[in-house]
């Protein structure tokens, strides 16, 4: 009776299969995925639904939904179609969500990785800067930035990224601090791997899962921040965005509630989809956490 150690265990299915199996277990996450797919489909088909400018006059102002077949969701006080604005708005919301999230995660990873990996005075300086950002309420900072930079969509996206990098930075730092002393990092260092490769090739892939999960939260927040800006009239007026629609619909809220309610529902469902998506990603990427 010998215990042979060289025999391999049966091969596991590929990673993405395991990932999908674990993701699938969470029903709510599947709903999130469906909602997310709907939003993406809306963004992609906006040009088909209405090939023209969504901000042009499309019918009699303040038509109620389901009255005019050309404008199924009705029109606002300037006669613009609510439905085509809704579809084009999905583009803007997704664009802002994705780009702002990328900006904030990128800054967060760089700051957090260096602070966590090197520690000492590097950590002290970077964390004091992070704290300085954290002490300013993010919406106030956003308003300030937009007031300075102007209401162009690029600047708004950039500003949203700038106000939301602190949380991912702290997360990355915490992950790096616990991972940097693991033996596999020493092993790689002992192979002669340079610091930057250690940070980005060895440690970062192991630190990513919680960051990716958190990215879904940032995306939802970014969409909400943009809507809030537009609601205050600080959005980019050249683009149809859900926030702009709510902001303008506010003036006719009592007579034509649907002008604000329809984009409002769209925002709720989109944010919900990101939140559910994040939960599903968490289950799939950190399978041990829930047991």
């Amino acid at each position, binding site marked *: 009776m*010998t215990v042979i150690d*060289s025999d391999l265990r049966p*091969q*596991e299915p590929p990673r993405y299969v395991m990932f999908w199996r674990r993701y699938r277990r969470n029903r709510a996450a599947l709903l999130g995925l469906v909602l997310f797919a709907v939003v993406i489909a809306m963004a992609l088909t906006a040009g088909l639904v209405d090939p023209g400018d969504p901000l042009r006059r499309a019918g009699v102002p303040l038509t109620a939904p389901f009255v005019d077949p050309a404008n199924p969701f009705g029109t606002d006080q300037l006669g613009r179609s609510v439905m085509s604005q809704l579809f084009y708005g999905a583009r803007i919301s997704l664009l802002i969500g994705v780009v702002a999230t990328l900006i904030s995660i990128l800054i967060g990873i760089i700051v957090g990785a260096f602070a966590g990996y090197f520690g000492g005075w590097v950590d002290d300086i970077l964390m004091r800067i992070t704290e300085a950002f954290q002490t300013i309420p993010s919406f106030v900072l956003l308003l300030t930035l937009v007031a300075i930079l102007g209401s162009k969509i690029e600047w708004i996206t950039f500003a949203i990224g700038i106000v939301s990098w602190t949380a991912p930075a702290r997360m990355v730092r915490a992950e790096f601090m616990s991972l940097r002393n693991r033996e596999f990092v020493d092993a790689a260092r002992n192979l002669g791997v*340079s610091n930057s490769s250690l940070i980005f090739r060895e440690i970062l892939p192991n630190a990513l899962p919680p960051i990716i999960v958190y990215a879904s939260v940032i995306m939802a927040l970014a969409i909400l921040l943009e809507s809030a800006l537009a609601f205050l009239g600080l959005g980019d007026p050249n683009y149809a965005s859900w926030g702009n629609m709510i902001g303008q619909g506010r003036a006719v809220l009592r007579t034509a509630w649907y002008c604000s309610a329809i984009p409002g529902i769209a925002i709720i469902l989109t944010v919900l989809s990101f939140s559910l998506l994040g939960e599903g990603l968490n289950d799939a990427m950190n399978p041990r956490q829930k047991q």
Partner: protein
Amino acid sequence: MNTQATPVLAVSDLRLALPKGADRAFALDGLNLIVRPGEIVCMVGESGSGKSLSAGAIMRLLPEPHVHVAGGTITFEGEDILSKSEKEMRDVRGNRISMIFQEPMTALNPQKTVGWQLDEVLKLHMAGSRKIRHARAIEMLERVHIPDPESAYNAYPHQISGGQRQRVMIAMALALSPRLLIADEPTTALDVTTQLQILKLIRELQQTDGAGVLFITHDFGVVAEIADHVIVLRQGEVVEQGPADQVLNRPEHPYTKALIASVPDLTPPTLKPVIAAPIVLKGTGLRKTFAARGGLLSGKRKEVVAVKDLSFELSQGETLGVVGESGSGKTTVSRLVTRLLDADCGSVELGGTDLLACTPRELRAMRKDIQMVFQDPMASLNPRKRVVDIIAQGPIVHGEDPDKAHDRARELLEMVELSPAAANRFPHEFSGGQRQRIGIARALAMEPKVIVADEPVSALDVSVQAQVLKLLADLRSRMNLSLLFVTHDLRVAAQLCDRIMVMQKGEVVESGFTAEVFANPQHAYTQNLLSSIPGRDWTPPVRTTDAA
């Protein structure tokens, strides 16, 4: 031993069900055991045999509902454990049954000082003022032979060594003189001298108080040292049980025989004829201190000297063992010579160049010549990389063509006796022994002049350990490797090392050829170490069965 006494603990036909999708349906299938007062029952088995879960079942600390009792009874001093309420169990735990856990790292609350945690146990079950409890706590710390108990009392768990943490755990468990002590691999993380003291301590308790002990271990040396009765487990089933003498010296089941045959022999290798080989690694005057910090208002802790003026020489093709207790600085030595830690002073000459004086750029190039095999096979491989990339990484970093490096990695896998199919898998798909083989392959990929192995087999099961040691010995003779082998296990050192260097508190107290040191130790500490090897008086009976 009084066989007539009522048993402290009686387990009959215990079955523990595992959740669906586990590798087997029952973690334990039909366990019967009896622990009488004053008796030490050893449960032996390799990892995954279900020994720790059985302890969990007795304490009612199973990870329910994933693992639950599916049948059988557990009787403690005539009371049915399984029918007790959670409240009643709380009174039993810690007071009448206490447990020493496997992981000294996680069993203590990292947020609280050692003293606070000892005090907590005493407060729950003992009357008396703070002063009396403090005195009792210090007394317990002394009883488990912690140097400087006052300092340890004020320390946080991370500030004391693993061995000391385990002693604190034992102090907590023994503080209330329980009727039954469950010890789950309590000495696995300890050094031989400590281990012997702890084993003696457990015996002492059992003799003075007549407590029963259920001792879980994987180490047959420990079994030989302490057991009255032995139960051998394999994958949840009892393969053999009986009085210690019978199981150890006349094992019947082939599995027991194989396990016993894997225990490394204590006979050191015969003296090699001394050939004047060139010196490849030379350390001179190495020193390293760590500053420890205490809490703001708690007592102060001293600066720790990890390595004090260490010098050594390693010749081509030789294996030098660095042996010592935890806290002796042997792991620090392995990190200093590879410059994963910076020494305070001294030099490490590798092929004539001082590694410690190198600039970062020179150092990265020099690392090629000195490679390391790490202790923890779980932590030392990047979980997000495929095995082939892990092995080929070093050569690629040093400018090797990636395709060639990958081909070479596959050859190396074969050399460490893993199937080439392993190349495209991730580390979590391998067992501990297999991962250690991958770690060895990674070190070999650089074709280093020196390999530093830091406790490479201490985390492995005994049968796997035997195979990995055999592999290392084979590779060494085939490739004329020079090894700096750090270990706490003298049996392992005896198997592999030509010369050994015994360290105590950062200093080398004795060094010389392994055979000479083992036969005729000069320093009192070495003598102590050698006489503490568990089961040194027991010669395993079966040497014919080849475990590897």
